């Protein structure tokens, strides 16, 4: 297994200047070091306002970092990127699924156009080639070719989630970052999505980084867990290790909270 992604000293500083009678607000994220292997699943857990979503956004480059660098397959990006070329390569390699997938789609254009956009902006393909890629991806995530012409409101929650996933894997990324992909979903749709992601990971060898509050799912699909508190990584390790022998107090709190909910006897 090779490292597909390396994050070194990623830092972000939110600094609201001191004004008259107003205390300065300082939020510092990092410095964060992180390595992700090929086909590995990493879960980020932690309290609200601990900087999980911010970290996800920094990784995909939606928010500009203050310092640090991200290497993907030996290709080095400064997280504080400026050059246009770098940015294009980066959108190829890291893709993101946002939390409320239905809100992230334009309701006034059909699915085909939504999915066409990343291809049009990032590749130099002809429109017929683009259409073929879109149709193949739709089939890959378990939808039909006809969904190309559908609008957002014609699709159910699960299908919308599939479209979001299709949009993310369209450019054949190496890393997929997801911000609470399962939170808004119903139980039966959620297991369908989990299955789909597991399948795609096996097929494409994606590295998958996701944020979740649902520790049951974290335990099920993650290889590695990262615990965050106040913008810092306080603990990281293998999933089983974290769940069996948590070290840091924050981790202990989360894990005991989870264990107190899980029934002790097994159900048959």
């Amino acid at each position, binding site marked *: 297994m090779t490292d597909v992604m390396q994050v070194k000293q990623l830092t972000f500083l939110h600094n609201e200047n001191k004004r008259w009678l107003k205390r300065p607000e300082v939020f510092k994220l990092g410095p964060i070091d992180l390595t992700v292997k090929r086909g590995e699943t990493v879960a980020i857990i932690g309290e609200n306002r601990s900087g999980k979503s911010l970290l996800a956004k920094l990784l995909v480059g939606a928010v500009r970092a203050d310092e640090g660098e991200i290497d993907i397959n030996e290709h080095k990006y400064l997280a504080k990127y400026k050059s246009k070329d770098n940015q294009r390569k980066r959108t190829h390699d890291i893709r993101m699924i946002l939390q409320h997938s239905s809100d992230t789609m334009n309701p006034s254009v059909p699915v085909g156009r939504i999915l066409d956009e990343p291809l049009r902006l990032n590749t130099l393909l002809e429109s017929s080639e683009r259409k073929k890629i879109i149709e193949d991806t739709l089939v890959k995530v378990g939808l039909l070719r006809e969904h190309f012409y559908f609008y957002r409101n014609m699709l159910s929650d699960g299908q919308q989630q599939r479209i979001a996933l299709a949009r993310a894997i369209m450019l054949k990324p190496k890393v997929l970052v997801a911000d609470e992909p399962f939170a808004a979903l119903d139980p039966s749709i959620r297991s369908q999505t989990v299955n789909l992601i597991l399948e795609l990971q096996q097929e494409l060898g994606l590295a998958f980084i996701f944020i979740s509050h649902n520790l049951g799912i974290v335990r099920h699909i993650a290889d590695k867990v990262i615990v965050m508190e106040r913008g810092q990584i306080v603990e990281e390790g293998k999933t089983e290790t974290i769940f069996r022998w948590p070290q840091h107090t924050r981790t202990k709190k989360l894990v005991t909270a989870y264990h107190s*909910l899980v029934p002790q006897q097994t159900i048959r």
Partner: protein
Amino acid sequence: MPMLDIKNLTLEMHSSEGTIKALDKVNLTVSSGEIRALVGESGSGKSLIVSAICGALPSEWSLTADRMSWNGENLLGMSSQQRREVMRREIAVVFQNPQTSLDPSATLGEQLEESIPSEFVQGRWFWQRAQQRRKIAISTVHKVGIKHHKHYLSAYPHQIPSDIGQKFMIAMALVSQPKLLIADDPTRGMEPTTKTQILKLFTRLNQTRSLSILFVSHDLLAIASMSHTMTVLYAGQTVESGKMKHIKKRPLHPYTKALLDSAPSFRKDLPPKSHLPTIAGSIPTLQHLPIGCRLGPRCPRAQRACVQTPAVRRIHDHSYSCHYPLHMEKL
């Protein structure tokens, strides 16, 4: 003796394409001192039931029930004055979205103090009464786990984060010391530590004050850890209801089984990264409801008889409605 007793509740909406049965013969009882969970996916009509109990449905929808009573009094036949009285003092509701159900033009403290019934406030003079209201408000807010009362009680609803809002809604519901608490998805999107805190609070209130709770959610983990009985809802039909223990051990309806299987935490033997068992398809929209058993098109055990709505059958106090339940191995 059930406190809240609902039998064959049917809600019909009239649209241009004819009437839609959003709720179809729903049965639900909450006994005193029990925690009843109401489980279902979104679009299954959980929140409609909650609004039907509060009487907050639009008047152009027709609501019929064989029985809908609160402590022996018929809720449907009450005057709106009496209904409000019941809702004010005996039943409290925690609504789903705190940001939209709080008054945006008043601070949280004002709203909370307003909802304290005047019987709880003693004192001869108005300043003494105001002081006591303040005291009650602060202690309630502490009880649900909001620490900085000074900051949050003087904040407006748009200034607070949503998890504080959720806790605050619970505080507002508890301040009138109700007999029944209806909590509509109170733990949605909460982090595990806060969630257990809230669930512990509910359990404690249930034990010490014998508060009955109708816990509406689809978070099976939370439900399984605290509730005594459970009712499963699918697309406006009650699918199965009974003791939590029995349902968990031996679900009789295929849908209940699929729901329980979908939570990986319930299964210790499940190897990591394995496929989760699922039920194909998704919940139907109200405009395209299948006839008969509404699970029909998705059900792995469906047969020809499933186009008729199955009657409710019961084994002791475990009732289900399915033609081919899981304990009958005749396929």
